[in-house]
């Protein structure tokens, strides 16, 4: 009977109930989005970092990977040193740079990576083959489209543009061997990759035998801290960055968004609670006469509280589920805005749906719906029956 009465009561003022559910849905959507944002960025970045199995990165001392133009010198020697350790199952050196492709009367500029295609964690091959040969190059969709090339085509690529002399340091002919997706590439960013040795040859004396970054894969079961200690002892004038420390750095940089997410999340929860409380309170106040009659008939206080709490829960739960769907949509939209941060890897999602966090948030909202109904119903069911009936008669 409490279910019947609760349902009947909600239907009695259909418009009001629908509006309240809609309001809760928007609050729930916002709450879900904020929960997704507060945990999603970190998780998304973590997944990206471990996607190819490289647990450690070496960056020039005091910097983050590709944060500055600084490089690690004596790369060949460093590779030999690092590969001597059997616990390090893969070591990949990467050098970042800029290339220029003269094409049909214009010059297309693109970022480029010099790497060892046999041991790399920067791209995913979508079509064709890896750039094994010295004159092989692979590019992403934007690079291929802008240069108007197809797999198998030759193209001239230059590096080291000097604005003073308007000349290039190095220029050679490449064969496009594959189409790739760069894992750390920003959206709509043109990018290509070639063998590291080739990059060195094209970059002039300044960048010979240098790397922007080393990526290291550690054998499973090996203690990461001991691996880090060993690497530090090799004196490579670099900073060792584990996945955890990289995440900590990202946390620091994105602290604003996490704090915003917490604040807006709390506000959303509060607004949802306030809406349901207001509605239930007004609804109960309108029905004190009915409640007194039910008490007079012998309906217990707990059953009256149960009925009213059910009403609050129904509004919150329906609103929460609608908010879940709405939140996924608005999350996608907000993610689209934030994903256009310059230089942000395309693979990073600010709003990542993680079931546990989402259900926790929506559970909180449902609980708030319950709490919203408790006080007004306890108050109404405790009113003296005779007095209330008389007052209702007078009113």
């Amino acid at each position, binding site marked *: 009977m409490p279910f019947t009465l609760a349902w009947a009561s909600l239907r009695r003022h259909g418009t009001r109930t629908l509006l309240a559910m809609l309001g809760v849905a928007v609050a729930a959507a916002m709450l879900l989005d904020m929960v997704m944002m507060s945990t999603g960025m970190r998780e998304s970045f973590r997944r990206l970092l471990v996607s190819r199995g490289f647990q450690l990165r070496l960056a020039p001392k005091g910097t983050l990977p590709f944060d500055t133009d600084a490089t690690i010198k004596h790369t060949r020697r460093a590779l030999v040193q690092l590969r001597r350790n059997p616990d390090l199952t893969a070591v990949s050196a990467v050098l970042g740079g800029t290339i220029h492709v003269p094409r049909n009367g214009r010059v297309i500029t693109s970022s480029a990576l010099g790497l060892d295609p046999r041991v790399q964690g920067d791209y995913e091959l979508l079509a064709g083959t890896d750039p094994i040969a010295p004159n092989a190059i692979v590019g992403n969709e934007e690079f291929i489209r802008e240069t108007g090339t197809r797999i198998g085509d030759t193209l001239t690529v230059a590096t080291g543009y000097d604005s003073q002399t308007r000349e290039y340091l190095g220029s050679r002919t490449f064969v496009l061997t594959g189409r790739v997706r760069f894992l750390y590439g920003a959206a709509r960013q043109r990018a290509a990759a070639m063998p590291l040795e080739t990059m060195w040859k094209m970059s002039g004396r300044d960048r010979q035998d240098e790397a922007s970054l080393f990526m290291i894969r550690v054998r499973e079961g090996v203690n990461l801290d001991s691996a880090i200690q060993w690497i530090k002892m090799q004196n490579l004038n670099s900073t060792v960055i584990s996945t955890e420390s990289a995440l900590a750095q990202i946390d620091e940089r994105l602290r*604003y968004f996490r704090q915003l997410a917490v604040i807006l999340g709390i506000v959303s929860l509060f607004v949802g609670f306030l809406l349901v409380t207001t509605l239930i309170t007004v609804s109960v106040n309108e029905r004190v006469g009915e409640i007194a009659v039910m008490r007079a008939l012998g309906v217990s206080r707990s059953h009256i509280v149960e009925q009213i709490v059910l009403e609050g829960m129904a509004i919150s739960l329906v609103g929460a589920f609608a908010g879940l769907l709405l939140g996924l949509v608005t999350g996608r939209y907000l993610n689209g805005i934030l994903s256009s941060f310059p230089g942000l890897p395309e693979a990073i999602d600010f709003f990542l749906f993680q079931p546990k966090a989402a259900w926790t948030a929506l559970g909180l909202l449902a609980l708030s719906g319950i709490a919203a109904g408790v006080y007004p119903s306890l108050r109404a069911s405790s009113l003296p029956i005779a007095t209330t009936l008389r007052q209702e008669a007078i009113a």
Partner: protein
Amino acid sequence: MILPLLLVALVQAPQRTIAIDERLAVDAKLAVGDKVILSAATPASPTGDTVIVGAIVKRSTDPAEVARSEIRIRLHLDHLQSLAAYGDRVDRFAVATRGEAATEQAIDVINSAAFGFQAHRSKDIAVATSKTFQVVSRFHKAIGVITIVASAIFLLCIMLLKVEERRRDVAALRLMGISRQSVMRAVVIEAALLALVGSGLGVGVGWVGSQFVNWYFRGVYRTPLAFSVVTPSIVTLAVVLSLVLGIAAGFLASLRLVRTPPLILFGR
């Protein structure tokens, strides 16, 4: 005796001074007059120069610096060129002109005459480098829109409740002969007043919140940048929007009420 001393004085070059960023001064506990060694670790200067901290510079309100933990040191140009073995080179020139016409003329002259130079307007560079903040701004606007939608629904719900609470009063008025328009006008005026008072309170809360945000993030990022600004145009927008939403909510709620026959409002 005097001559050798003069010669020593001439030969011994005075120590160069640098200006350091206030964050470095705090982190490294440096003060004006302290000596530090500055090194670019180049073949020209493998051990570095001993310099004196001549000034501590306040951080600028440059948003691009906010999330970065790098520090800035200012040196005399020739000093940096020799320290970094940069030679007689610079990264850029900054040019001040007398007015817009002079700026355009200068750009034309420089780009056509100077080999390997490209002149840019400062505001164009500012636009190009502020893409990050444009993204943040768009994000804030989107959050703002969602908040407004939620508030509008909340407002409509509350107005509906308020108006329905008084349905018997409205029924009595209608039975007495008061017109629908009069009833609606009264409700809309009430809603508008509520919206005005509410928006006034909201502006106050928003201003206090803004002060708190600035105080907090200035402390976190150690910058004088203003993160949140309440401007007259923002206040105007908030008040106007509240009024519009409040009046709309009052109108819709009262319309529902006056369309219902009075006897039904009485519950008969």
